Structures are given as C-alpha cells and as structure tokens.
C-alpha cells in the first residue's frame, strides 16, 4: 500500500480551535485586495489523524533510541533523557533573547559556567556559542583566521586541508574566500614533508581534525603545530572527533589556536534528523578578541553581555545560537564530571578497537594501527567478490542496524567507517560483529542477496539516480482548494 502524504489526507473542513480567535479587523479594509491571499492550500486534518500520520512515519525511521547507529564521524551516542527534561524547564524554554539581562541571569550564568568547563577541557581561553553546526563553527573559525591576518597586515590566500578531511573543511575555506590546498596523507597521517613543502607564506591556516577521519591520532601534532606557527599560520581544530580525547588531552596543548566542538556529537545532544546541533567555537588568548559577539562576562555576582571587542568578526547567527542544545551539553558535562568524561572517551576507543580486532580477519582495516574512537574498513576484497560497501551497508539494515558511514574518507576505497560510541554494550557489538561476518560470508555465497538488499526494510533499495535525474521536490498535486470553500 502506498504511503499517503499529509496532503492526501486533507478533509477540507475542520475546526482545530487551538486558539481563541479574535478577529475584529478586516484585512481587505487595511491593505486592499491585491495584497491579500485568496487561497491558502494547506490540508485540514483532525488532530488524531495528524498524530497517527507522524507516528506511522516515525516507526519507519531508525534512531539511536531504537537501533544500533554506528554512523562514523557522527558520534551517535545515547542522548540522556534528563537533559531533554532540563532544557524544557520553563526557565530555559520560555525566555526571549531580547529580555533584559537581569531577567536572563540564569541563562547567562549557565553559558558562563559552561564556557569555564569547556575551557578547562580544551585549554582555550574563551568560547562563543552562536555557531549552530560544525560547519558554521568552521566558518566562524576561519573568518577569525582571516580577520587575524588582515589586522596583522598579511594578506594570505590559502588554507590547507589533508585529503582525509571532511567535506565541510574545504567548503568552508571557499566560503571564507580562501583557495583550498589539499595535501596527501602518508600512512593515514599528515605527511610532514608535504606540509612543509605546501605551507608557504600565503597559507593562512591548516584545518585538522585529531584523531583524523581515519580514526588515527596525529602523533606528530606538535611538529605540525611548529611548522604552521613558524610560518605565520594558524592551526584550526575541527572538533568533530573530540570524543576520544575528552578529559585526556587538550587541543590547546596540541597547538590549536581556534577550535569548534560539535555538541551534538561529543556532548550527547540528540541529532533530530539532521539538527539542531551546535558547533561552538573556542580560541586561545591572542585570538579571543576575534570571537563573535556578544561575549558573556561576569562583574561581581552579575552576568552581562559584552559587545566590546572591535576585532570581533561579527555574528554568524542571530541571538545566542541553539540555546537548548547548550543546556543539554552543559548538563552532560556536569553529570559525567572529570572521571566520567574520561571514561566515556576511553570506552569509545575500547569499543572501536574491539570491533576492529574482531572484524579484521574479514574486512581490511584501512590502517593496521590501533584506532581511536572509530575504525575505517575497506571492502575492496568484498567488492571483488561481488558486493560493494554500499551493498554491505544496505544489508545491515535487514539486521536492524543503521549502516556505518560509507565512502568516507575519500582516500579509502570502498570505505565503511564504524563509530560504535561508548554507550553501546558488548552484546550489541557482538551482534554487529556477527552480522558483519555473516554478510562477508554472503559476499561469497550469495552476493545477489546483498546487492538486492535491504529485504526487510520499509522500502526496497531506493533509486537515488532517478531522484537526481528527475527531481520531484515538492507535492504540488490536488492541494489547491476550491474557491467555494470558505477560509
């Protein structure tokens, strides 16, 4: 049976009565008819039907609460329920961003304290909370780099990223007006020679994530930092992979000048089908004044907003960013504390290495070294036998496991990137391992079964090529109401 769209469920008449209308003006008397809408083609459906519609949709979705979700580079850890409750408290959810500072003391205090904790964890001097995703954090950070160089009178034109970098890194460089220079990795790590060769005086910054997207720790990080700084550049930290280092090492000590942290990854806030998250940005002392405004400061016992710095790059977003995400991440840090954060980090690494160890006989790890919080396999052998990384990923859905990240990083052929996170238990990891081994067997015995998978999902293999060739991006059919119906 074809699933209906909400628009196909339109009843054409109904009284929702969520509000008490008070309609004592006639818009046509104020604006004249030419400005006004004649027809608003929204469906009218009863509440019970709306709820059922969305409940039925929800059940078609895999999620962290219902499925193992080892989507590499995304840190799909458990989202503590208490944090949802706390961010929903009236004192946090019913406040307006333009209220007076004395009405918002709790919110300002929370951000101030949160900043202190983050500074302790990372070694940064200060944080700005507006950036609402990792990519917006990168944009903010690289624009800070730009302002920094401009103020120092050195116009630079390039940003270096490793070939293993996430797509947002080069895309950010472009958005900030820089040319991207890609350096090749060596054994999965930054090639120091290449870096030295490429890092000329025109380079503004190196963008790096550590551990990198191959799940490997950049052990030469101090050397890298020295090269970058000696040549007048800045070192930017894409903090998407901070999870294994929480409470263990500080980005500032590695030499990073500006960093972003993805609160929706490392700090357990839920992903909401793609967002909202937060990509808050921190900076070490000399760069602090370039951070977005306002900054939150404390005088005596009062918290206030400081719009002071003239060097600030401005604002990448309205108001204070995704405040409810900040509340949840703050609560997470408090709840885990010093020891808990470190344990979480260690267990994320243990879980990934356990999977690596148990699967390495079957799937070729991209690099044989110990990994950090995620492990990248190459399914090239399986591909030769007739089933690609894509087929393997789709087959996992039949086991009710959300597939790992596929075909990323780009430098690994037929890549599957597995990030189990610390919040999965051994039984689940073993179940995943068994499924992967069974699938590997099937690449030999029954590759067709993999190629035609999934078999037990809500839909069969989805034709993405068709979607792109013949784009249908919105429902336009039968939504128009007949004029005769009163609005």
């Amino acid at each position, binding site marked *: 049976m074809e699933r209906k769209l909400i628009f196909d469920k339109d009843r054409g008449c109904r009284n929702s009565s969520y509000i008490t209308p008070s309609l004592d003006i006639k818009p046509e008397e104020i604006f004249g008819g030419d400005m006004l809408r004649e027809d608003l083609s929204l469906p009218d459906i009863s509440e019970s039907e709306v709820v059922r519609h969305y409940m039925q*949709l929800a059940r078609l979705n895999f999620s962290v609460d219902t499925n193992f979700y080892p989507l590499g580079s995304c840190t799909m850890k458990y989202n503590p329920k208490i944090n949802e409750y706390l961010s929903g408290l009236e004192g946090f959810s019913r406040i307006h961003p333009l209220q007076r500072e004395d009405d918002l003391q709790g919110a300002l205090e929370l951000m101030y304290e949160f900043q202190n904790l983050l500074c302790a964890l990372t070694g940064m001097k200060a944080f700005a909370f507006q950036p609402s*995703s990792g990519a917006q954090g990168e944009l903010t950070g690289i624009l800070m780099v730009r302002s920094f160089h401009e103020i120092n009178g050195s116009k630079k034109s390039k940003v270096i990223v490793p070939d293993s970098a996430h797509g947002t890194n080069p895309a950010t460089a472009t958005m900030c007006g820089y040319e991207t220079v890609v350096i090749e990795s060596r054994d999965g790590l930054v090639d120091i020679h290449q870096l030295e060769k490429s890092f000329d005086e025109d380079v503004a910054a190196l963008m790096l994530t550590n551990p990198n997207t191959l799940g490997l720790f950049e052990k030469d990080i101090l050397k890298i930092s020295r090269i970058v700084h000696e040549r007048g550049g800045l070192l930017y930290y894409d903090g998407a992979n901070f999870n294994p280092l929480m409470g263990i090492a500080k980005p500032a000590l590695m030499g990073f000048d500006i960093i972003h942290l993805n609160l929706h990854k490392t700090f357990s806030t839920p992903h909401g089908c793609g967002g909202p998250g937060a990509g808050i940005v921190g900076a070490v002392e000399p760069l602090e004044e370039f951070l977005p405004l306002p900054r939150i400061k404390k005088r005596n016992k009062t918290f206030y907003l400081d719009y002071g710095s003239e060097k600030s790059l401005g604002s990448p977003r309205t108001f204070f960013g995704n405040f409810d995400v900040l509340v949840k991440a703050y609560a997470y840090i408090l709840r885990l504390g010093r020891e808990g954060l470190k344990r979480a980090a260690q267990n994320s690494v243990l879980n990934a290495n356990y999977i690596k160890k148990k699967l390495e006989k079957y799937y070729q790890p991209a690099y044989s070294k110990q990994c950090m919080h995620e492990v990248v396999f190459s399914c090239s052998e399986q591909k030769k036998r007739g089933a690609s990384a894509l087929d393997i990923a789709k087959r996992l859905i039949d086991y009710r496991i959300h597939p790992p990240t596929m075909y990323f990083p780009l430098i690994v052929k037929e890549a599957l990137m597995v990030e189990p996170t610390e919040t999965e238990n051994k039984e689940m990891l073993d179940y995943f391992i068994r499924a992967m081994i069974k699938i590997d067997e099937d690449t030999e015995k029954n590759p067709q079964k993999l190629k035609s998978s999934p078999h037990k999902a809500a839909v069969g293999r989805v034709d993405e090529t068709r979607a792109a060739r013949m784009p249908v991006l919105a429902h336009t059919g039968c939504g128009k109401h007949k004029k005769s119906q009163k609005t």
Partner: protein
Amino acid sequence: MPYIPNSPSQIKEMLRACGVKSPADFYSDLPEEIRIKDDLDIPAGISEQQLKRKLLALSDKNRPLDKFNSFLGAGCYDHYIPAALSFIISQPEFSTAYTPYQAECSQGALQAIYEYQSYICRLTGMDVSNASLLDGGSALAEAVLMSARLNRRNTVIISEALNPEYKEVLKTYLKGHDLKTYEVQVSGEGKTDLSMFLNACDKDTSCLVFQSPNFFGVVENLIEIKKLFKDESVLKIMVTNPLSLAVFKEPSSFGFDIVCGDGQPLGGGLRLGGACFGFLAAKKEYLRQVPGRIVGKTLDSHGNVAYCLTLQAREQHIRREKARSNICSNQSLNALASAVYLSLLGRKGLREVALTSMSNAHYLRQGLSRIRGIKLTFSPLIFNEFVWFTDNAPQVLNELYKKGIIAGYYIGKHFNKYNGGVLSCCTEKKTKEEINDFINSLAEVLHGEKAYIR
C-alpha cells in the same frame, strides 16, 4: 559510570580481546606534553538528582516571559504551540536519528521533510525549498551568495528596514567575498524608499533584499516592487515571516526569485531564540544553486514510491571546495516541528493565528494612538508588530517594566535616528485585558492619569 553499559568484567574481557592491559594503552601515540595530568579543573560527576536540583536552581534565576505582560517580538515570537506538536517531535525516531543518508531506514524523516518542503513551497509560492538552514540570518546570507553565484555581480542592495541581526549575519558571511553591500534608507513612513532603491541599482547589482513585513512591522509595497524592478538579471530576495503568508499573497506573485527567513513563528517556541530554523525557497531555474539538503521523491527497487536526499552534487561531501555552501547539519527537527504545526493548525487554524495576531496588533496601535505624546509616524500597514515613538523611551520602558509590562524592543539600540522608537508585537496569545493594561499603564506612566479604553 553514567551511560556506559559495559560491566567492569566485560570491559576487561574486551581489553583482553584487543591485546591491551588498560584503556591507557590505546593512547600510547599521544605526546606527554598534550596530556591532562591531575590538573583537570572539572568537578566530579553528580547524580541525576543533584543535576536536576542544580539546573532547576539556575533556571529559576531566569524570568520567563509568562511572568510578564510581554509585547516582545523583533524576530522571535511567542505563539501558542499545540500540545500534540511537542509530543510528535519528541518521538525518539525523530529526535534521535541523524541526517537521513540511508534512505531505506529513514523513510519517516525523509517523507516528513518532503512534506515540509511542500509546505514551504505552498506558503511562498516558490517551486523548490531546501530541507532547512540554520536560522533566518544565515538563510539570507546563503540567498545572497546564491545570487552572486548566479549572476556573478558584486553589489547587494538591502533595505535599512531589514532585521539588524540579519544585517550583522550577512556582513559576517560576506567577509570572505568580494561583495559590497549598500543600504537604502526608509522613508518617513518606515517603508523602504523604492525610488532610492531603484537609483542604487546598476549593472553591478547582484540582488535586492527586502523584508516584508519589515523590521518595523510595516508591510512593504510589494505591488510597486513588482512594477519597478523589471530587470530579471537582478535577483529579488524577500525575507518574510512565514506566518504572515497566511494573510498576504505568496511572494512569487510579486516577482521574487528567492524567499527566505526564519521559521520560528511556525511552532518554534522561544528558547532564548534557539528554536529557529532558516527556510529558503526559490524558482526552479535556480535549483542547482540552492544550498543545503534537499529531499526528492523517487521509486524503490519494487517500483514503490520512496524518498531520498537528492541533488547532492551541490553539497560539501561530494563537491568539497566547489560546494554551494559548507552546510551539513541543519535544523531538521525544528523544520519538522513547523510542518507538524502547519498540519495541526490547518488552513483555517493558521489563518486564525495570523489574523488574531494582526487584529491584536492593530487594536494596540489604535489604543496607543489615543495617548498624548505617543507618535505613530510609521505606516499603519502592519502585520503583527509596529513602532511607536515617545520621548525618553528607555525610561518609559523602565517604568512599564516595573508594572510587569515588557512593552517591546527598544530600536534606538540599532537605529540612532529612531532613538525614541519601541517595537511592540502582539500574537494571538494576547488578551484584550493585557493589551488594555499596556495602553492604560503607558498613559499613566506618561501623564499620571488613567486613559480609559472602552
């Protein structure tokens, strides 16, 4: 340890399987210099009970809007949110899933986003919508960058009456680009001066940015805009409050190319301005330059209808430095909430919300017009908010605050020349009593007397 399900014995067993003695062994590559020793300045963990106590105490230090008679708007609006909305979007399959990369196990999110896109197209009259951006400000910035990619020209003309927060975001996003921005003043009526706008236009003009209803609450003369700006090579961008589109004609009918803004008014709530999302819709000829995720309809291997992320060759994970934008994570759940909001309210319900807000705002404006010393120099063609002027506005606001009234947003903060201006907003939540209370109190503050309204 909270949220770590493995028992100590399981952990030991796994460590053994990995051939290491302790988790510290995994970190042998880390140089000594970067490690945290015993000096981590983070408190010890606390129980859930303690956490709740601590955050309750913090939240109690805020004064929620409900404690006041508030007329604050200015980009963040306090509308009524049906209980079913929160129920639906807190379903774990929506709240704890990520971007629906894997279509076969994400059909719920994909269909819901497809429906969201359809809703945005219906409200704006545009052909295509993306799956959301981060907020209204960055949506405008993306729209401007999109225009520059389309016609490769380098000036942007914006109206002075654009939300100042958006101007700031736009300025930030344009830092790395060779694009100049010109701001065109408003007329004495608080409306964009269209003739000045026309004068500012030349062969370098990439796009024109109007906001309607504008930051001062005034509905711009959209019919005139359509007549005056005929040059199709210059893109016309409209920033709007999507709720206003329940009353006003779809922007497509006024010749706009891109429509964007913040979806917060559609069931977003306050959350210190965090419950927002950017929407962006465009004519279909600009589809390839639209930034962000887009969901499309297709078929599965059995020939049944299915949905998936599409046209990804625009995006950073495929196109990298040539991508249309760097956006990756967006504000999906908030966008989804707006679709749920529209589904719950329906055609009639949404019009009621919009018209009631508008009625209340007009009622308030009329009430204020009867108070001596209050100047209403801006146009009366308003939607849900408007500016009134008085001498010593900050002091007046203070006096009202002492009476429990947040009268609005002091616009003198951003606009020197309007240093007596206050932007007051009404939603459908305002009762006549509350509005009368504001009017009477203001009269009292100014004249020490009661101005009796009705």
